[in-house]
């Protein structure tokens, strides 16, 4: 078979993302564990909240983005874990595909999964804290997407770095959580401003921080990934 045509970067990324999403759809393990964690987190924060001491608009953004960071983390370990169970990763590395495409495929699948969890968590927080975003809800969705891109870029890279270690489930949060701070802080600040009905211009600087983080860490993680899988 001499007429093999190695697929391009985006084609491979899409193949890998589709494969990972098909596996997640059939097992639903990462999605459901993150979703249950999110909803439990929102409930617990709601139960310990004293509405006479703290206003909901002061409480809700912190709750939403803290839960987002921890819930997102839950599924990230699985990203490369499922490739190691039967050394399926060797199959990916043997194929004539750019290593960067493996990262992009994994990150894309994670983005879908994290965004899906966020799409349920945001309405849950809105309901529990009786918030009124109005048209700001769309902007909040956009902020969520930007935050998710930052989280999965860093999280996917660290998942690849830690998966071979004995304490992967402990190491991943220890390494990744500090890098989530520049994602969580601007996302929470932007949401807080949206909640008080601030002008878009006052929200924009925080959105710019998120965009800058995504671009910088997105590119850095793609470039760093091949070094994490060298044996």
């Amino acid at each position: 078979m001499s007429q093999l045509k190695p697929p391009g970067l985006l084609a491979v990324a899409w193949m890998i993302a589709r494969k990972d999403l098909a596996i997640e759809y059939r097992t639903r393990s990462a999605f459901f564990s993150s979703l249950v964690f999110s909803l439990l987190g929102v409930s617990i924060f709601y139960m310990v909240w004293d509405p006479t001491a703290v206003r909901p608009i002061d409480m809700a953004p912190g709750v939403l983005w803290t839960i987002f960071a921890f819930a997102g983390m839950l599924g990230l370990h699985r990203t490369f874990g499922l490739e190691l169970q039967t050394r399926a990763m060797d199959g990916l590395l043997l194929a004539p595909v750019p290593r960067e495409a493996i990262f992009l495929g994994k990150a894309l699948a994670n983005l879908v999964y994290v965004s899906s969890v966020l799409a349920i968590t945001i309405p849950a927080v809105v309901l529990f804290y009786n918030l009124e975003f109005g048209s700001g809800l769309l902007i909040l969705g956009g902020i969520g997407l930007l935050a998710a891109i930052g989280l999965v870029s860093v999280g996917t890279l660290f998942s690849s770095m830690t998966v071979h270690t004995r304490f992967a489930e402990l190491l991943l949060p220890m390494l990744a959580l500090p890098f989530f701070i520049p994602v969580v802080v601007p996302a929470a600040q932007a949401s807080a401003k949206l909640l008080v009905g601030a002008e878009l211009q006052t929200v924009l600087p925080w959105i710019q921080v998120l965009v800058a983080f995504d671009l910088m860490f997105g590119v850095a993680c793609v470039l760093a990934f091949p070094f994490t899988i060298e044996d």
Partner: protein
Amino acid sequence: MSSASAAVAPAPKPVAVCETVALVRRFGRRRAVAGVDLSIAAGECLALFGPNGAGKTTLLRLLAGLLRPTSGEVRLLGTPLTSAAAAERGRVGLISHQSMLYDVLTVEENVAFAARLHGVPDVGSATAAAIARLGLQGRELTPVRALSRGWQQRVSIARAIVHGPALLLLDEPYTGLDVSGARALTDLLRSLRDDGSSLALITHSVQEGLGLATHAAIMLEGTIRRYEPASGLDPVEFAEAYRLLALESAA
């Protein structure tokens, strides 16, 4: 050039599909592969014997490009593996101890995924052909986790050959196969070899290995201690020589 002068010209040396030059791989202070020179031409099958820890699997992973050599070089179709084009690197197939399959996906999905990754033009036909070659018809839609170890091994082999590799690396491929599965695998490997594919086979069974091989080698402590054409080799004598070398090495 006259036909006479052409007649006396030396026969061209067969192009090596895979070649190693002074190949060394260290893990810390231990040398798992300690200077291996090998050459496998098209249509050749090298059976590699050796006790556990001899460095056979490391050598195979070096040939596959899954490990970087500490020194020395692996050449695939004449090009150093590290600088080979993607299409050339993709002409290697590997069957390892582990299935390298996704348990949740079906037989067909696993094989088709490998075909797509390698850029096989007609994924459907190639997948169906590989599945048929391993006798997996009727199980296409079965998730891999629902199959026994032996059937999983067949899927693993289908995944490894779906792109028609020029070099097929096999690390104890008979593990988990029943008698009919083992016979089917031997027939398949023989037909691949006869079609011009090169094979490197690690096995502990001298009988199975010599039945397929064009060349046989014994590896001990990271080095090739014995290397010879398999034709005319007496399996009993070879097995005894292997046993003695292993004992000598252990001592």
